[in-house]
C-alpha cells in the first residue's frame, strides 16, 4: 500500500481550515435563518446595501471574507460572533493533529489504465473467511 500526503504544512492547513470554518459557520447561520424566516440572499444584500452577488460570493467563498464582512453578515443575520484564540499546548495523552490529507494508494483495477485508487483512510481490515470444506476466501470490509 503506497500513500501520498498533501504536505502543505501545519501553517497552511490551519489557515485553509480556519477560513473555511468561518465561511461554513456563516453559511450555516444563513441557511438556518432561511428556514426559520424565509430570508434570502437578496434580502440580506438589501439590509447591507450590497449587491446580491457580493453576498453570494462571500458565502460561496469566491469573494474574500474581511473581518468587516464577517461582522456585517453576522449583524444582518442577527447573530453574535464568538471568537477565541486558545492555547495549543499539548496535554498528556493527546494525539498529534494531522497537518495534511493522507492519501493511500491501492492497486490498479486494470493493467494499462491510470486507475490506481487511493484513499485518505488506512486500508480497510481484511477478513479471512475459512469455512470447513471450502477454499479460503478473503474480502475487504
Amino acid at each position, binding site marked *: 500500500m503506497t500513500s501520498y500526503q498533501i504536505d502543505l504544512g501545519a501553517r497552511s492547513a490551519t489557515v*485553509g481550515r480556519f477560513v473555511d470554518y468561518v465561511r461554513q459557520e456563516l453559511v450555516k447561520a444563513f441557511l438556518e435563518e432561511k428556514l426559520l424566516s424565509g430570508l434570502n440572499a437578496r434580502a440580506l444584500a438589501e439590509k447591507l446595501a450590497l449587491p446580491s452577488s457580493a453576498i453570494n460570493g462571500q458565502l460561496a467563498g469566491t469573494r474574500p471574507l474581511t473581518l468587516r464582512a464577517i461582522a456585517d453578515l453576522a449583524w444582518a443575520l442577527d447573530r453574535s460572533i464568538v471568537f477565541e484564540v486558545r492555547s495549543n499546548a499539548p496535554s498528556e495523552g493527546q494525539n498529534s493533529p494531522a497537518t495534511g490529507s493522507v492519501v493511500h494508494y491501492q492497486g490498479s483495477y486494470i493493467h494499462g489504465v491510470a486507475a490506481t485508487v487511493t484513499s*485518505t483512510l488506512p486500508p480497510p481490515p481484511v477478513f479471512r473467511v475459512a469455512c470447513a470444506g471450502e477454499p479460503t476466501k478473503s474480502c475487504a470490509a
Partner: protein
Amino acid sequence: MPVRRLYGTRDFVEWLKERERASEASRLGVETSVIEQIDTIFHRFIVGDTFRNRWDFRCIKVERHPVWEFKTPDMRIFGWFPAKDCFIAAYGGWADYIKDHDLYRGYRLEIRRLRREMSLAKELCGEGTTPDDVISN
C-alpha cells in the same frame, strides 16, 4: 459520525501533486491558496463534516451512474460515489475555466469512458442522484 472514504485515480493524484508543486494562489483573490482549498474540502469530507448540496458538492446531471463534483472557490473535482460516503476523484480543474468553456459535459463523458476502460462493475458506478443517497450528514 459517518465513516467516509476518498479514493482517486493515479492521474488524479498526479494532478494533485502538480497543484501542490505549483503552489498556486487563488485566481479569485480569496484568502486561501488552491492546495489549501483542496486540502480543506478533502479534510472536511473524511472527518465527516456536514457536506451541503450545491455549496460543497453537487450531482452534475441526474442520470444512471451520475458524476458528482466537489467544489472549492477556485477548483472543481469530478468523480463518482461507488457507495455511500465513498468518493472516487478522477479529474480536477479550475472552476473559472470549466465554467467559461462549459466543460461539465466533457468531464461527465470522460468519467464514463474511464469507468468503461476500468471494466468497472455497474454496482461500483453508483446509482444515487440525491445528496442523501451518497453522503451521510
